[in-house]
């Protein structure tokens, strides 16, 4: 089984040189720590920055320089600032190559729910609906099951939808799944996890063809 760092590490393997990438809050943010050597990616923060750097040292904190999670950050060589309309403009126009975000539920047709739980305080969708509606490639980082052990990879989302048919890949603590017309196509198992266990824990349509390799993470 993968912990959150393992999920982030596995997602980082999807990065390619020259990619512009938007990382959501939570596990997706950790992906920045595992960018493979020798490739250069530019991180987009939807509050108006391309070229997001690491957290600042204590003596370089700038209240005017934050990420979409409202954390203080830094720039890198080649960074650029812009306003919020341009930020979502570049997302909508498909300029951002990859978006990584968390989810409460994903359906086997790529629908995603990650913004609202009925009966709980609604905080809002922030930029999530814009990101999922338009991004070229969306990878979801998530726990496979909720705390009670119920699958969050479903035939149909039960929570209010954030976007329809938009997720391309899911990396959970149990494995890696491409979203296909036939459903969740298991392409890698997490270390120590059997296909039988994944079958048991996946409520949506699951495609298993041949021997599914176990992931090797260094």
């Amino acid at each position: 089984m993968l912990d959150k760092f393992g999920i982030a590490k596995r997602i980082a393997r999807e990065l390619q040189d020259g990619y512009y990438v938007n990382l959501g809050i939570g596990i997706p943010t950790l992906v920045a720590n595992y960018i493979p050597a020798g490739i250069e990616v530019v991180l987009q923060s939807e509050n108006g920055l391309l070229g997001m750097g690491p957290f600042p040292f204590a003596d370089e904190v700038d209240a005017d320089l934050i990420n979409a999670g409202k954390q203080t950050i830094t720039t890198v060589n080649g960074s650029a600032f812009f306003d919020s309309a341009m930020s979502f403009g570049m997302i909508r126009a498909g300029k951002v190559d990859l978006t990584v975000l968390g989810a409460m539920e994903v359906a086997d047709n790529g629908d995603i729910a990650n913004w609202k739980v009925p009966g709980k305080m609604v905080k809002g969708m922030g930029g999530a609906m814009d990101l999922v509606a338009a991004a070229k490639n969306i990878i979801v980082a998530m726990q496979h099951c909720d705390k009670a052990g119920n699958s969050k990879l479903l035939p149909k989302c039960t929570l209010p939808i954030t976007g329809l048919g938009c997720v391309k890949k899911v990396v959970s603590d149990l494995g890696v799944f491409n979203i296909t017309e036939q459903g969740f196509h298991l392409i890698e198992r997490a270390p120590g996890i059997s296909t039988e266990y994944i079958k048991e824990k996946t409520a949506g349509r699951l495609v298993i063809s041949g021997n599914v390799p176990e992931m090797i993470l260094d």
Partner: protein
Amino acid sequence: MKKIVKNAEEAVQDIQDGATIMLGGFGLCGIPENCISALVKKGVKNLTCISNNAGVDDFGIGLMLQQKQVKKMISSYVGENAEFERQLLSGELEVDLIPQGTLATRCMAAGYGMPAVFTLAGFGTEVAEGKEVREFNGKKYLLEYAFDSDFAIVKAWKGDTHGNLIFKATARNFNPLMAMAGKITIAEVEELVPAGELNPNEIHTPGIYVHRIFQGANYEKRIEQLTTRK
């Protein structure tokens, strides 16, 4: 040309009960601190506020919420404020949650003189309820209208006596968009200089959009999530 006002009190003096106002900023970054304080002091009520967030309990728009000055918030994310939650659950406060890119683009449309825009964001979700859908090249888009706002209140880094504005880092966010979108736009700046001192190549918001400008004082610039490395 008389755009300079003395201070925030003078800048907001004609904002009446029931007005619709835009407030720039993302979280607490780039918010018009001086004007928010002046609105709290003035005690104007029943406001509709268009702002990406609603501040925290004791800073930003949260200060206006504490005084029950806000009737309706139009925002994309409002999670950081307990008083907000209380007023929402008790029905005192109306909230319209809209996707962040849609919020930005509805400001932009107003500033560009366009009545509406089409966007993919929110199609198939509850955000789409009651909205016109149009298909372009096989994809479905929602019709979203430009905002109609009596006032826009923004915060810039530098400004000049003609109202030209330059923003700093990610404190830019919604500020230039809202500056373009207000019927009357008020800009508070950290540094106000005579016309001619700012490089025209570096202006983000041309002064035509700005009606009132003043140099703010005592910026706190509170940080919501201080994160550092060692």
